[in-house]
């Protein structure tokens, strides 16, 4: 039934009214397949023989397993009181165990994205948009335009994989095809990670503990190594150093932004990253972009920061709800970008001096290097050349 659906038809709801338990057809099939693959169909007996199973019992505050090799044997060994009063019955327990074990497999299957297309829609007056957009892994594209111009709407269209059913009428294609309609209706099916100025860490955990938790949820082969990589990248980006034992909630604005960026680059499975204004955060922005490019992410950056805007392979000028212009940096802009980058490093140096209790009492020319050849005084590392920041 779901196969016959036209994914571009907004009037078609997702397949929901399936069986009596109301599992969406595809989701149900997936769950069943997962349970089968794990050998864990709830109706039959379930093996209870590894540390993941022990973890399940522990998390649910259930008695530990002794010599039992199956869930049924474990259940039968419990006292009558426990079996009647614990709030569990065997079926529910088997289902819970299957859910717990399959959570890992569900996150493991993250699809690779080779291209993202946004087919033109219409502006706020209903006039057709001028451009179709095409993004590939490693692209950094900036969105510019005043507040209310429609930047958020474009990001939202990508986020919800619009199929001509949003106010803009845009259509999003993944690898040239309309996305599986089902994937629009699950959080895991979404392809987009978001970083905005409003986001905070709210968990009461140390940095390392939290990263371990995130790595664990990704079922990575080497969670410790992944964790280490995020931590190192975040510290390199942040102005001030912090350690693995620092509580998340004590990170400064710049530090937590740096950690969010490093985490989105290295630990998040999402192939597309939407970033809303990271300029004020005290983060090495050029380096942040490099991390995303190196990881093959598609980055959409809503920004008015000149350095970031010139760092992108393109910038989309948004006006009246539509993309009005696509600008590629000119050779002059490219040259100016290098000057801006040098200026940015100078400013970072001044910030560092202030932080250490220093004074800025030199003559203006020596202080900022304005008028002297800033670029030659501070040679560019090869990593900051635009070639690494993706091109058409």
């Amino acid at each position: 039934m779901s196969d016959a659906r036209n994914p571009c038809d907004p009037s078609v709801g997702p397949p929901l009214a399936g069986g009596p338990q109301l599992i969406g057809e595809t989701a149900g099939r997936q769950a069943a397949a997962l349970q089968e693959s794990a050998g864990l169909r709830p109706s039959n007996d379930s093996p209870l023989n590894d540390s993941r199973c022990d973890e399940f019992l522990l998390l649910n505050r259930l008695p530990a397993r002794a010599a039992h090799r199956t869930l049924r044997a474990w259940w039968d060994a419990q006292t009558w009181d426990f079996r009647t009063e614990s709030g569990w019955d065997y079926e529910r327990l088997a289902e819970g165990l299957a859910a717990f074990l399959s959570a890992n497999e569900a996150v493991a299957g993250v699809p690779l994205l080779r291209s993202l297309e946004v087919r033109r829609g219409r502006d706020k007056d209903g006039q057709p948009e001028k451009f179709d957009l095409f993004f590939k892994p490693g692209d950094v594209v900036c969105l510019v335009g005043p507040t209310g111009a429609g930047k958020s709407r474009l990001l939202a269209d990508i986020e919800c994989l619009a199929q001509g059913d949003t106010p803009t009428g845009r259509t999003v294609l993944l690898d040239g095809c309309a996305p599986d309609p089902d994937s629009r209706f699950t959080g895991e099916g979404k392809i987009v990670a978001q970083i905005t100025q409003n986001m905070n860490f709210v968990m009461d955990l140390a940095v390392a503990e939290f990263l371990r938790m995130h790595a664990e949820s990704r079922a990575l082969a080497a969670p410790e190594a992944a964790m280490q990589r995020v931590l190192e990248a975040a510290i390199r980006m942040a102005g001030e150093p912090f350690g693995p034992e620092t509580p998340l909630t004590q990170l400064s604005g710049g530090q937590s932004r740096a950690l969010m960026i490093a985490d989105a680059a290295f630990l998040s499975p999402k192939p597309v990253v939407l970033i809303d204004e990271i300029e004020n955060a005290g983060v090495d922005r050029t380096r942040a972009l490099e991390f995303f490019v190196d990881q093959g992410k598609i980055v959409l950056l809503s920004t008015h920061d000149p350095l970031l805007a010139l760092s992108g392979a393109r910038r989309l000028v948004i006006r009246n709800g539509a993309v009005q212009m696509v600008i590629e940096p000119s050779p002059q802009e490219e040259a100016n970008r290098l000057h801006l980058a040098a200026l940015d490093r100078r400013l970072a140096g001044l910030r560092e001096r202030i932080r250490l209790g220093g004074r800025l009492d030199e003559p203006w020319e020596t202080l900022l290097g304005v008028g002297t050849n800033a670029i030659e005084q501070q040679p560019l590392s090869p990593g900051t050349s635009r070639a690494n920041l993706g091109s058409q």
Partner: protein
Amino acid sequence: MKLVTVAGPPSSGKTAVILKALAHLQREGRRVGVVKFDCLSSHDADLFRTADIPVITGLSGNFCPDHYFITNIEDCAAWGRRLDLDLLVSESAGLCNRCAPHIRGHLAVCVLDHLAGVHTPRKIGPMLKTADVVLVTKGDIVSQAEREVFAFRVRQVNARARLLFVNGITGQGSWELSRLFDGAPDDAPLTGGRLRFSVPAAVCSYCLGETEIGEDHQHGTVRKIQIEEASRV
């Protein structure tokens, strides 16, 4: 008429999310209504009325909220049918996490919010475990990483539900939710149907209004905590 049960901890954003999703359906000409089950007081009826949504408020007062829900839901559904509604949403706050208002054959939605912390999915009982759709709200103010961990933790207790991130303020995700509401089963039987999870077995003197403390006042089904004595050295 479709009947959808929406449950979630207090202040998780149930009302805001329902309002946003129903607005999409109203624009498409669907007739929608809401029953709000609460314990002591509720002012949400005004919000629904402002949005032109007919609403009933049911306050359970002295009664167990879930018993109150299940003994009244049929009458509420009959009211909805008299109004010729296409969709009736039953909204109730899960208070002790022991029960769930979800009914077999009817779309069941659980609302959680990110600020409650990553351990929440493991503390919420059948309200989450038996749901078809899990909505997670307030994602705009927590990090992407926390959202992903939260989703994973939800998956660990409910492998088959659809998991959606919804924002009750901006409406992000509410369009997707309105599609799920619209795809809910139509005219599923209520009378003779079953709850997905039983309500508590206990009926004790305190259920019936007793307030005095002490063994002499404990009648009915009573369960005692088991305390292991610390061994003295």
